[in-house]
């Protein structure tokens, strides 16, 4: 899958473990909920995971560079509101408004990029600041109260209907997923992201355009968050300042569940996609199994630990065994 193994994993590859988990989940819920395996439900799954999935995709290159973007959820809210404003108050048609929103999302990502790549401030603090700032701007623009609704059905098609048999947004999601996968796994850009994540100084000494690279990653993240905002608006048929609250954490959860190292360098886009799938199936399947929502939270925690432990466990066990061999004594 990935072009070449970054590091040979002694035990099972994390993605393999995760794939098994996803299949297992599917079988489990299929047994528990008669309607779980229906096509219709699969479409629901796709539709519901598009936004978080997009944010997780955007987050993957960011984390690969050793950074983090806590502002994506807030930016989704801000972009949803801006989209609403552009459409309703500035009178743009939805397509033009969506285009402008993407540009604004890129600009917002650019703010992160400037502070992180330009001033070399730690991503965690910067995006903690913009996490608050973007949500705050969304609230300030709407005074907290304004809601944008009554979008034309041509626009709602994007979020609620099907195109060529699949939910419309699934096509967009797939396109972004493929693009990000190619970017991360098949281009020098992705390679440079990893280099940067492993050793920022080392990447600079190698003459890589480290600053521009870092900036690009955050701008990309902003743009994808804006796209997620447009899809979110189309799915719900409304835009409000609280859109996407807490989504950054869900996206990060999917990414780390997908095996990307929070310290940078290690990870894969298909891992992230599997992480998104594992969480989405869990959330959806539990409704079909008629379990309360809290159980989804509990199981998410368990899943995180199990998936990771399954990767590390055998390695650890081997290490234990090695230590247990008789000590070198005469």
């Amino acid at each position: 899958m990935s072009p070449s193994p970054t590091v040979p994993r002694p035990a099972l590859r994390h993605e393999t473990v995760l794939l098994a988990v996803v299949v297992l989940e599917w079988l489990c819920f299929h047994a528990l909920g008669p309607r779980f395996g229906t096509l219709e439900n699969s479409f629901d799954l796709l539709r519901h995971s598009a936004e978080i999935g997009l944010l997780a995709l955007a987050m993957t290159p960011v984390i690969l560079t050793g950074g983090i973007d806590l502002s994506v959820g807030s930016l989704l809210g801000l972009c949803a509101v801006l989209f609403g404003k552009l459409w309703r108050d500035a009178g743009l048609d939805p397509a033009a408004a969506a285009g402008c929103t993407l540009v604004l999302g890129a600009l917002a990502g650019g703010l992160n990029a400037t502070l992180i790549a330009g001033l070399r401030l730690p991503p965690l603090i910067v995006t903690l600041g913009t996490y608050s700032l973007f949500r705050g701007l969304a609230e300030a623009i709407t005074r907290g109260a304004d809601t944008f609704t009554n979008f034309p059905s041509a626009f709602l098609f994007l979020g609620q209907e099907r195109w060529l048999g699949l939910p419309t947004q699934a096509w967009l999601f797939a396109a972004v997923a493929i693009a990000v996968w190619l970017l991360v796994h098949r281009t020098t850009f992705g390679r440079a992201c990893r280099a940067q994540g492993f050793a920022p100084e080392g990447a600079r000494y190698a003459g890589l355009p480290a600053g521009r690279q870092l900036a690009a990653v955050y701008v990309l993240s902003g743009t994808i968050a804006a796209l997620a905002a447009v899809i979110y608006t189309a799915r719900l048929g409304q835009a409000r300042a609280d859109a996407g609250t807490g989504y950054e954490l869900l996206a990060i959860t999917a990414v780390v569940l997908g095996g990307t190292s929070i310290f940078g360098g290690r990870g894969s886009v298909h891992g992230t996609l599997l992480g998104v799938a594992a969480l989405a199936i869990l959330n959806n399947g539990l409704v079909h199994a008629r379990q309360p929502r809290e159980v989804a939270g509990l199981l998410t925690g368990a899943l995180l630990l199990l998936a990771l432990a399954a990767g590390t466990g055998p390695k650890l066990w081997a290490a234990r065994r090695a230590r247990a061999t008789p000590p070198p004594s005469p």
Partner: protein
Amino acid sequence: MKAWPRELSVGLALAALLAALAAFAPGFFAPQPLLSLAAREAPVLLVACGAAMVIVCRQIDISSGSQFAVVSVVAGLLAAEGWPPAAVATAALALGTALGALNGFLVAGLGLPSIVVTLATMVTWREGLRWWRQGAFVNLPDGLQWLGLGQTAGQWTLLATALALLTLLALAARHLAAGRHLYAVGSDAEAARLAGIRPGAVTFGAFTAAGALTALAALMNVIQSPQVDPKSGTGLELKAIAAVVVGGVAIAGGRGRLAGVLLGLLLLATVGPALTHLRIEAHWEKAIQGAIILLAVAAEGARRRPA
């Protein structure tokens, strides 16, 4: 001065905020409300100290808010069962320590990444609590509030306890071998191992201590009111981590001071009330808070000489 870079810019931001308050809303400095606010932030300071220890050792703990809620509710239920305060406190501290130790075991013992472990324990405790309690408040028996000390004395006690602990921890971080081991492990775990330090033990210790501090913080919060809200502590981990990183502790470990954490928390805890005092409408608040965080760190970034 090179020795206090980030702390200095945060200190300046705080000073500017306080100056604005002195000029436009001197009412902010009225002693009683200020004491109440300070007492409410005292538990946060302890959680932030724990977060700082964990971060200095190049790990992260985002489960502290959930731990806080679990300990609060359990302490409340025990007190409602009629346990004496000392027993409640002991049990709560033991529980918090155990929760921290569990994180520590998963991170140091099994070698799992701390962000994943604490993300998992965060959702597990939070959702487990919701499942178990279904959001019901716990009503505490009379006499537990302020431990019977009376309000003002109680608030001063809390504040003094938090500051004393901060001072002790800051001194320990500088003058005890164990404190320096935290920095050593955070700076380079392999070098630490070669120097005869056990990185696993140190990491485990940091998480355990953070758990104990969170439990103490939860207790300090519980005795401030006659009811326990099972939602308490929501978002606390983010506030604590924000205070720590704004206060100049490097997220990559090995660097930073608790004095900076205090400054960071003071800045973050002052902004909200300050905006109310300055009559700024609530829907501007998050934007302004974000801008202040960004300014405080950007000032530092712009000043720093390029490496």
